């Protein structure tokens, strides 16, 4: 796991904020913060977030990644912010599609 690309991390956090609407998470947000267990999001929210991320960065192998996560033992079926940022960073299309 890398230290995370700060730009991607900022983007992800902004999108999480947008997604969560009025949900508040008042704990400290770090790379280890998990979407479901800590921030109280639903797994569907991860899909929505994936859609938003693709909207910005272009196509990413989200489906495979989510399927992998679904294979994990119940208590580990979650994604941390760092994990998501790393996923995006390591699969970023060589030519990012800016906007749409």
């Amino acid at each position, binding site marked *: 796991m890398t230290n995370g690309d700060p730009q991607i991390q900022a983007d992800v956090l902004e999108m999480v904020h947008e997604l969560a609407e009025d*949900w*508040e*998470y008042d704990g400290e947000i770090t790379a280890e913060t998990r979407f479901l267990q*800590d921030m109280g999001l*639903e797994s*569907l929210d991860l899909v*929505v977030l994936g859609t938003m991320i693709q909207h910005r960065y272009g196509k990413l192998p989200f489906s495979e990644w989510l399927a992998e996560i*679904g294979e994990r033992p119940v208590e580990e079926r979650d994604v941390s912010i760092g994990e998501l940022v790393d996923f995006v960073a390591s699969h970023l299309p060589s030519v990012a599609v800016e906007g749409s």
Partner: protein
Amino acid sequence: MTPVRDEPVAIVGMACMYPGAPDVDAYWRNILNKVDAVSDPPESAWDPAAYHDPTFADEDKTYCKHGGYLGDLATFDPLEHNIPPVSVGGEPDQWLALKLAKDALVDAGMADLPPEIRERTGVILGKGTYLNGGNAIAIQRGLVIQQTLDVVARLHPDYSDEQLEQLRTEMKAALPPMGPEIVPGLIPNIIVGRIANRLDLMGPSYTVDAACASSLLAVQQSMRHLRDRECDVVLAGGSQVWIPIPVLNVFCQLGALSRKGQIRPFDADADGTLLGEGIGLVVLKRLEDAERDGNRIYATIRGVGVSSDGRGTTVMAPRVEGEITALRRAYEATGVDPETIGLIEAHATATDVGDATEMAALASVFGERVDDRPSCAIGTVKSMISHTIPASGVAGLIKCALALHHRMLPPTLNVDRPNPKLGIERTPFYLNTETRPWIHGGAEPRRAGINSFGFGGINAHAILEEHPTSSPAHLPPFDSELCVLEGGSAEALADAAEALAQRLAARDPEPALIDVARTLAARVSAPGERDGVMRLAVVAETLPDLIVKLGKAAERLRKPNTKRIKGVAGIYFASEPLGREGKVVLLFPGEGAQYPNMLADLCPYFPEVRAAFDGFDRVYGDQPRPTVFSDWIFPRPSFSEDERRAAEARLMDMDVAVAAVLAGNQAVHGLLRRLGVRYDACVGHSSGEYSAAHAAGALRVNDDVQRGRFSDGLYRTYKEAADRDRLPRATLLAIAAERDQVEAVAAEAGGDLMVGMDNCPHQVVLMGDPEAAERARAILDRDGLIYEQLPYDRAVHTPRFAAFSEALRDVFTGLEVGPAETPLYTCTTGDRYPEDADAIRDLLAEHWTQPVEFRTTIERLYDEGARVFVECGPRGNLTAFVDDILRGRPSVAVPANVQRRTGITQLHHLLAQLLVHDVEVDLDALHAERGGTVIDLDGGRDGDGNEAAPRRLHVELSQRWPMLRLSPEAVQRVRGASPGPSRPVTNGSANGVGNGNGINNGHRPPEPERPAAPAPAAAVAVAPTATAAAPLRELLAGEVVEAAAGPSADEVELAMQAHLATMERFLAAQTEVMQAYLAPAAGQLHAMLGSVVAANDMELVTLRRLDPAEDRYLDDHRLGDALAVMPLTMSLSLGAEAAVALLGGGVVTGLRDVRAHRWIAVEDEVPTLQVRAHRLEDEGPDGATQVRVELRLLTGREDEPDAGSPEVEATVLVADSYPPAPAPLPVDAPDASTLTPDSLYRDVMFHGPRWQGVAGIDGTGPAGIRAALGVLPVHDFLASGELPSFVLDPIVLDAAGQLVGFWTAEHLDRGRIVFPFRLEALDVYGPPLAPGTPLSGAAVIGLRGDQLMSSDIDVLDDHGHVWMRLTGWEDKRFDLPDALEALVKSSRTPHPAPLSTPWPGPVAALAATGREVECRRILADLGADAALWRRVWAQRVLTPREREVLERFRAPEGRRIEWLAARTAAKEALQLLLRREHGRDVALTDLELLADEQGRPVVAGAGVAGLPTLPVVSMAHAGGLAVALAAPGGDLGVDLEPVRRRAEGFADAAFQASELTVIGQLPQELRDEWTLRCFCAKEALAKALGTGLLRSPRDLAITALDPAQDTVTLELGGDLAALRPDLAGAPLLVHTVRDDDLVVTTTVAEKGGHRDDQR
């Protein structure tokens, strides 16, 4: 009466103490939480160093030290049982059993049994006759000592007879005496005798010993007494407190103890048992009596079967036939079928043979496993607490009773791999290693069996059964609580949250979170009264968590434009509640929502949840299916990953999945209904539609017949379709895209792909054959659409399910349906359900062939006004769909249950959101039966009369063996016995070996009453406070004390007196010895040092009681003429005397490093002063010998004479002669003083004649003072007339220090009260002088900041030579508030200045009606050194008995001072009244304020003796102010409250609706203040009527308010009306006054303002 042989007996009360669990609550909580309470032996048990040998090379030791120990839990409060603390010794179990017997009766609601029942109440306890403390002492004293002496005599022929006799004496001294304490050790029956005696029970009381089976034998005997009608109630149980080493040893010899130190019943790695301590007791009654009396019934005992092994292999080996016989007898006698047992509490000691034999016996009685389906949980609490031998059976009995009571299957610990040799897999049993709900669909009630098999071949088996009516008790606490606040605005809520957080943080002791939640819940406004009300809801796990969250919430609420808070941590707020206008919709999820163990943790708290699963089991049980339905939801613990996965997979199979989710939905729906959650519409997703239809009243499967038909129909349809392969398969892809996009993908992919569910914008489910799905995947990947394959393989909600749907239609034909009672929506049409029955049935079947149009349906509901969506089922998937559908629109969706939070916590999050959105919820139902109470959250107001809680005394009961061990001193004494004298030293490190000074006394002083070694269970830990127990019975003002019956206080006092007398004799004898030793060297010891308790070359320790009756010099040194304080200079003189005595002569040439740490103040209790002088190695200045002296006040701590730092310490310099005097200090004091010799001690200082060493002030200056001093006589220092001569004159030394006080009086405006606390050096240049010798003093005084002064002072003889010099004499300075300055003034004048001031305002209205009521007030604020001044004040004002009450009043200093101030104001008001009415001049201490039973103050004391009618007083205090009224008679009441912001909901909580209406008629701006006036008025009237605080708000009703007259009119109701029929129904007036920031109310309880107190 003929006994009824199989008559059930009810368990109606329980109490226990087992390792890690002081009571039943903790015991049950530990069991559910799988707490392993096994440990090393604690300090209080045995010493492993002495007895533990892991190699077992020494076969008299034990290789195993682990066990279940009670340790610190073994304490006993004798006062609670009216037992003198000094009597609490001997065997610990007798005291614990007594405590638990009482607790068990209290638990049964039988704290006060009527005599006719007590007469027929028995006590039967299982108890072994193992080696205990009592018989150990007997053996040691009777056998061991003599044997040891014989051994020593043979080993050491050189030992003289004197030495051997000395050794005998020392060994005896090291052991506890052969007193009455050991009797219970020798006669085990005392344990029950004591219970019968203390609780006055007259049924049979005896112990039974059947080894490990003892408890159940006791139960069997108890049942006989009940069935024979010989008893109506029996306390039964077992006791084993302290683990006897010989028993451990025997178990080691047998190889029965675990070498691993673990108890692992039924595990493959089990290697033996562990022994433990504990006591359990149950209260038993005949079932019919218990039902008739409305007792809470934990469970019933159907019967106990008992057998012996007969001729087995050996007497110690278990025999399977014997165990089988016990089991058979139990089942035959009761007619219970073993198949109906759902839980076995096994004996299971974890020994190889024991466990195997037991399993074989069980298998023989219970038969083989059927259908590969185990049906009965098995386990043992021994896995948690170890084997408590005679107390083990009742441990299992209590556990099973609670399991039946809460319908929970408790876990067993330490099984990782079941022992394969037991063959459990062939039996009906399964090892239950997890806490699981006890779901039960059988026709018979839930039942449990308990095995208890004893060494020696005695076997018992008990059968327990659930009782249907029992309501839960001993419920474990919730893991979180819901706290709700209300307010009119975000700002108001922020204020309320902050105020609450502050009050909670300030409360000591910390209130229970459950009580806080309960109290706040009680304040939540009712529907219809909540217009404009906003709520803040917080879910908190602990009180600190709540405080933090309240703070965070307040912070958020204060931010402008905060409309809504929805915090994951559990903070919720909505300024525009959506539930007020919007509709609430229940969403029922379909298959896929179920998960293993869903809702399990809600079952114990909410019977509805469990009942839903019970119902499904019941209907399944009637059908020929090889399964218990709930087994799939709450899978039996499995021991392999494969088993676990298989169980999880089965839960996803369609038949199980649909039934499971329907059961889960019904469980949650039952819960929401219990909690009164309002809902306006229902809708189900997929198969959840059946739940919705049921909840809405369209599908009427409301009884077992209908439910059975439905369940069976669903199953058969599924089964037939599956058998004929008519359940078309498909791949399901959940695609994150809009529907048209998904349909385009389907079209492009071709094949049979169809949309089966349109859940939300980011999830549309496409279904089709695997090949088509594969093509769709490629397209989705190409287009970058996120998708997920779902873990189901049926083409549900497509036309391919038509056959299944048609078959299902027939099932619905046989079911009752009708128009929905709650609007019901269907995702098949996106519309409401039809009303026609057939149309309903069509739709119920048809939905399997139609896509689930969830998105459309939610949009439709939203259009129709739905705003709040509650997911009524497990997991919470639908909530995410709704959020996605309604993103950006005002709405709230929340699940009742999610997998990632506990059931309770998520429920709280749900209720929190519903409450902030103003959806009706019945919070009472949430709190029902959980034991929370409404508390006073506004804090700080306790009325007079309920402040001090009775003091607790905890005697630690030692479980440690009496050790025959000699102290090093004793060894020395023995060694030195023959040749030389001994010089006993009882304390300190100094070596007291004889030094050959020729005194051979040949005998030791009498033994002190307390033995050197701790008694086996002696009360060595009796807190010092025990001595103050005597006056507890007194009913004194300001304290409600339970009247004690029987022996108690007096006995305590007698015992203490006897103890003190013995101590005195001891001291006297010892002093004689010491004096003899000291005599040649030092002459007579100074009288004021008292007795010597230890002495040698280096150290001298003396003890003396400081008794104001003898120590007359104290009389002239009283602060405020009240509190006697030893002058610091007297302490120094005594130290000097001790130093000279130690050294045997010399002159005192000075002091160094003097420090006074605390006051040596003498109040009611006569303290003991200890002076310790210790010679230092280093020489002082001019070759002087240095002796460090320490003075300690041993008030109640004679046991630990070296405890803590000394009160005063100093180094004394002793030399052969005085050094030459230096030149006098230059002192600049040119000005004449205003102080005349007359005024010195009258106006400035408090010293009496004995200490008036200053004769006149010669001159003063800005930094100096000169004065004339004189040497005063000391002939009347002691009442005994003994003439103390001092090597260091304390009076002159004090006079020198007083110069600072006189200077201060003239030169300083503030900080005029000065007290010395330090002296750097004193140098003395001449011998003490005769009385009458004139001296002079000169001081150079320096101020150090505001609070310190440092002075150098010379005392000169009449030749002007320095006789004494004080260098660095330091004083602390401070002030008293003006109002209380009288405290430092003399109170001995005829009319001392009062402390209170008149306050006519509050009684002006009463005066207008001709009443002469005195009203006085005091500002009760003492500032710095409050505790000291409170003591001074109390001495001036209170009687000794009143002071004791104050002393015991454990409260913050401020509250104690208010309490004292209120009494002062009352007494001073009485003084005036008595002078006015009776012409009497009465001292404050001649008035005593007692309290009657209701806590109302009653005037007593010499000051009112002989009066025809006693005057009356009433007192109140709050916020640092105290007020009191006094009147010649009548009903008088006063109350006082500071005007400050009250918590939200204060009015609603304090008043009834009718009263709120009265207050509501006032103009808006008056309402707040008058709300407070009304509250205050109630308090005043309640006090006037002598009922103390109001029991119920209904007791007093406000009927009218008159702001013009400042009056509140009230009427009596409820209990009060019954209590005072003379006033019932009449309007009663209370006068109210607003004075600055205070509201004061006064009343004479008069009818309508007309004088009417001529009663």
